[in-house]
């Protein structure tokens, strides 16, 4: 009865980045910073997968390989004071923002690494001060869209010229929270930018079973917001589309929904054999690997010396090795700490001396009775 995934008609995305270096506002340093973040994430995730297979990681592992251009491209546009939230596939965005690989791996190892200190998977991170990564609820899909509206609301109420950028997946566009959060943001014209990475699947579910529309951006009219659909593996296409969305939101014209077509190169998690992914799709996207495309563009178009990139690759490899030794050497959190930090200290927490119950009689108890007319009136107030 459910329509099965239609035979994939593949889009005509190019296998190379078309942008002319001359037209771009970036110097080599900026170009290489983006490359470094993408490469570091790729190398890190390859190692993480290996560690998982060796049984060195507790629980499951999820990778973002193949989506580095969307993450880095969008993250590269964030300005001071902006906030962003990430999902399972945005490691490269963290690295672009300066998150330390060794800290991430330490969390994957369940070690005593702030801020989670062993309480959360390495997959998630919230750290406003250091990286502008806002706290979000990483359990339920799309729960971060209402959160994004809330961060954007805070900016608007303070008259702050900032935006909140929320990464999200295609599957995460189905829960009610996606709708309620975006509806609220649209009504109040909040500076919320949703970067939706359509990586073809939600776990094993293809978009055709997830939504009755071809593109997530097709849903924008329901919110009367700015939206675009673009190819997500071309770093500069990503940057241009994301910039338009961010400028729209920053200028007070309300939320933007920027959709990028990309591909989850690995399984939903490393335990997933991806039996449901056709070779056809896989090949199409492998030919468009965002990191390869960017490497070639840097060398062929931006005239960066391959050796320079090779050195960056080596640095990434070294950082990841160091991350492993750091993570291994770090201690586990002490079991006694497990009950700490459940409640934040508050000004009126009862002091030991206040803990004595007071005698405060109730003079005239109020008790429901059937036939009191006043009560019926009061009952009416809803």
């Amino acid at each position, binding site marked *: 009865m459910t329509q099965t995934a239609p035979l994939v008609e593949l889009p005509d995305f190019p296998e190379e980045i078309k942008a002319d270096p001359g037209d771009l506002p970036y110097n080599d340093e900026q170009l290489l910073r983006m490359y470094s973040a993408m490469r570091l994430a790729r190398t890190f995730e390859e190692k993480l997968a290996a560690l998982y297979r060796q049984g060195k990681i507790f629980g499951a592992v999820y990778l973002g390989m193949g989506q580095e251009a969307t993450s880095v491209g969008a993250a590269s546009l964030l300005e001071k004071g902006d906030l962003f939230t990430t999902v399972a596939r945005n490691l490269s965005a963290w690295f672009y923002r300066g998150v330390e690989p060794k800290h991430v791996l330490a969390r994957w190892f369940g070690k005593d690494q702030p801020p*989670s200190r062993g*309480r959360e998977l390495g997959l998630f991170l*919230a750290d406003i001060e250091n990286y502008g990564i806002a706290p979000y*609820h990483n359990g339920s899909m799309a729960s971060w869209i*209402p959160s994004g509206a809330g961060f954007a609301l805070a900016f608007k109420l303070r008259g702050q010229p900032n935006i909140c950028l929320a990464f999200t997946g295609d599957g995460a566009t189905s829960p009610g*929270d996606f709708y309620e959060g975006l509806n609220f943001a649209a009504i109040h014209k909040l500076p919320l930018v949703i970067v939706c990475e359509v990586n073809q699947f939600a776990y094993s579910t293809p978009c055709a079973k997830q939504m009755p529309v071809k593109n997530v951006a097709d849903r924008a009219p329901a919110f009367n917001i700015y939206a675009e659909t673009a190819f997500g593996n071309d770093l500069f296409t990503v940057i241009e589309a994301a910039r338009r969305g961010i400028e729209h939101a920053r200028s007070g014209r309300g939320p933007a929904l920027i959709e990028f077509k990309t591909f989850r190169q690995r399984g939903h998690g490393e335990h997933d054999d991806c039996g449901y992914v056709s070779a056809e799709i896989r090949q199409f996207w492998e030919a468009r690997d965002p990191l390869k495309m960017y490497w070639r563009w840097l060398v062929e178009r931006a005239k960066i010396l391959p050796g320079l990139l090779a050195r960056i690759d080596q640095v990434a490899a070294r950082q990841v090795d160091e991350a492993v030794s750091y993570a291994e050497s770090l201690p586990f959190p002490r079991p006694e700490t497990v009950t700490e930090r459940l*409640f934040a200290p508050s000004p009126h927490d009862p002091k030991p001396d206040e803990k004595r119950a007071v005698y405060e009689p109730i003079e005239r108890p109020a008790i429901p009775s059937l036939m009191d007319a006043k009560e019926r009136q009061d009952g009416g107030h*809803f």
Partner: protein
Amino acid sequence: MAQMTYLQAISDALRTEMRRDQSVILLGEDIGVFGGAFKITQGFLDEFGEDRVIDTPISESGFVGAACAAATVGFRPVVEFQFIDFIACAFDQIVNYAAKCYYRWGIAVPVVFRGPTGGGIHAGPYHSQNPEAWFAHTPGLKVVLPSTARDAKGLLVAAIRDNNPVIYLENKFLYRHYREDVSDAEYVVPMGVAALRTEGSDLSIISYGAAVHLCVEVARNLEREGVSAEVIDLRSLAPLDKDTFLESVKKTSRALVVHEANLTAGFGAEVAAIIAEEAFDYLDAPVMRVASLDVPVPFSPPLEMAILPSVDKITRAARRLLDY
């Protein structure tokens, strides 16, 4: 000092805190122009403006999620549920975001969720529920339930200033049926300290919320028979002031737990279990509970009254305990 209804005391607490702290904002349905379904925020829009009194679409999960996020970056949102029953629509954001954020990241979520609970006004299955047990079972949430106007104000002020998510449960029958002298000055009732509504030595009646009024009435009746019952109003379930009721039970050796929510797996079970473990040696009789029957809250008055705890039911239970 001024005579205030329970409802006016809630309004007063909100107004007091909004005046002293710019970061306090309100979100909810029909709270602005209309002043709220029960008129608790009447006049607030004029005084505080649209930026701080935000009318929301009917999207509990959406505005709860937004409020929690705003709370992590410096605001102190107070969210109104038009009826607490609709908190079920925001359940995930409350138990999974609000309750867990600080534990996971050390980022505090100072947000208050408030709304009318309880029956007795013939509002039927969807406008009469008492959800406290769901939240008291969820680590990371504070849960308070005032039974008097004074506490309604003092606990709400404490809740708003608290750096954690607080579920503040109001009883809609008390809104306009209970009135007492309330200081118009600023004051706080700390969360986690019970109150004694009567003092006594023969029996401990442990309750909270509107049911406390029934218990006080029962204690008064028993007093005429020469029985002195101590009525303990928990006021807060999380944090829980167990010392107070354990002390009382150790003194009286008899414990009766009463609440309006339905019996099974209600919070009264937790109180009874604590007593059965920590005051066992002092007990001269079984720990008994009186609560609503385990059914949805029916609309028709005779049915509704049949499921709710009542002075009679509590009195009968008290007598059984005393005669034990």
